[in-house]
């Protein structure tokens, strides 16, 4: 049952700070964890396509029209944006790159959970719940990579998701706009993460992990 998965994952999330002490993530190797995280983003991207299609149809026109290209309203900036200056993105350190992903998905997960509580149809609730569970897995996976590389986890919204900071949308249409942009940002982040993890794959040599294992042996 999806609620069972939720509670399990919530418990797992609470135990996240304890992960660096576990042997398993280091034995896997940072390289392999990065590969797994990359694979997870591709899987989520695939899942999102179906979810977004269903959700946008639920929102109805014009949100489900393929040419829909609304201007970005100021209020939508609350959702973390994947958009970044090209040179800045290139120059990100591994730590910064991973942290940006970790923070973004943690927050996106919060917003998605709020959405989950509000949607009408059972099918949509089921899909959203499934997606949230997978997204939670991605956050954990990124956290795992960071820990295995010795980076501290960003202080994130590990606490139960509070309602979004800004006041709720004043009307139904603007609320739908918020949902539209949330899905768009999620889609963009997943596509960006694939590129982020490609870069990390090349830059993190397996030797990093073997050094750490040797250090532990002493």
């Amino acid at each position, binding site marked *: 049952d999806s609620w069972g998965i939720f509670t399990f994952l919530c418990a797992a999330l609470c135990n996240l700070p304890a992960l660096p002490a576990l042997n398993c993530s280091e034995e896997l190797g940072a390289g392999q964890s990065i590969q797994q995280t990359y694979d997870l983003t591709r899987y989520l991207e695939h899942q999102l396509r179906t979810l977004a299609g269903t959700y946008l149809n639920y929102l109805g026109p014009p949100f489900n029209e393929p040419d829909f*290209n609304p201007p970005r309203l100021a209020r939508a900036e609350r959702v973390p944006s*994947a*958009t*970044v*200056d*090209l040179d800045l*993105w290139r120059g990100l350190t591994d730590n910064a790159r991973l942290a940006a992903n970790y923070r973004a998905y943690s927050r996106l997960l919060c917003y998605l959970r709020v959405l989950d509580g509000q949607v009408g149809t059972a099918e949509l609730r089921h899909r959203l719940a499934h997606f949230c569970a997978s997204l939670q897995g991605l956050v954990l996976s990124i956290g795992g990579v960071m820990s295995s590389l010795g980076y501290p986890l960003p202080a994130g919204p590990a606490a139960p998701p509070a309602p979004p900071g800004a006041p709720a949308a004043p009307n139904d249409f603007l609320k739908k706009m918020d949902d539209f942009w949330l899905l768009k940002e999620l889609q963009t982040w997943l*596509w*960006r993460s694939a590129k982020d993890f*490609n870069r990390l794959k090349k830059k993190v040599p397996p030797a990093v992990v073997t050094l750490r294992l040797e250090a532990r042996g002493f």
Partner: protein
Amino acid sequence: QFERVGADVTMKCGSMDWDAAVTWTVNGTDIDESHLNGSYLILKNVGLSQSGQYSCYEGSSWHLKYQTYLRVGTPPKEPVLMCRSNNYPKGFYCSWHLPTPTYIPNTFNISVIHGTKDMVCEKDAVPKNRCHIRYLQLFSTVKYKVTLTVTNALGKNFTTLTFDEFAIVKPDPPESVVAKPVPNNPRRLEVSWQNPSSWPDPESFPLKFFLRYRPLILDQWQHVELSDGTSHTITDAYAGKEYIIQVAAKDNDIGTWSDWSVAVHATPWTEEPKHLTTEAQITETTSASTSSFMAPPTTKICDKGAMVGSGAVAVCWTAGLVVAAYSVLFI
């Protein structure tokens, strides 16, 4: 002076009166009086061939009173616009053309809007109907809107394209595709290629590849998708048949497949046809010692094991010849 195809054109001879005596010429040739209405030149339903230099001379003095260069054409139809990023993440280019010629000069104006920002698309010198844009930001959620307007003396038209950053990514085809036979392997072909040179950063933006191959004699292609590496060994080629091979590329995660690369041809390795020498040696070896006879190396199809027994049925004609040679020796 520009006029539409099919229009009726009336030319006045400058300030001359209607009833003045004039002569019209086109490109130096006199025009028949039947086309005149008084001193006006009437051209009905003008066609492209009627473009030219029209001049009007006063009857007796042969003073030039009026001259115009007539160009017959059409207003522009909706232009065809295409935008593509073959150098992701550097930027993208847009190229355009008219579906039908207008026969008169046209000017093109292109505008690119990204959200609220106007971007400048720098026109390329060559080819002329192309411009390129550099991305300032990556991973944008806002679409790009490109509008192309074409104008000429007879009218204007336009078209618009709206797209996401990742939707127009299409690399150029792989380069330097090489296919070689593999020695001693009659069913293998080794194919290798390189990333397209226009793709700026294959490290961070890796490409995946699609290989297709078929023997020339067949129409059906075989396909292999490769997620990394720039080489592949085909292991199921038909022995001795010439193959045609092509490769295409795509960004690992986004966009569409490139066009197919230039086709290369290759034939798998085949053994030296020693059967020709065997026939000559049969007559020799009847008198000479057995050691001078060299059995031809067997192909995979004709297994050596099949020929050991003297009662073995010849699977192929080379095997048959060897059997014949052996039997001659042992008679």
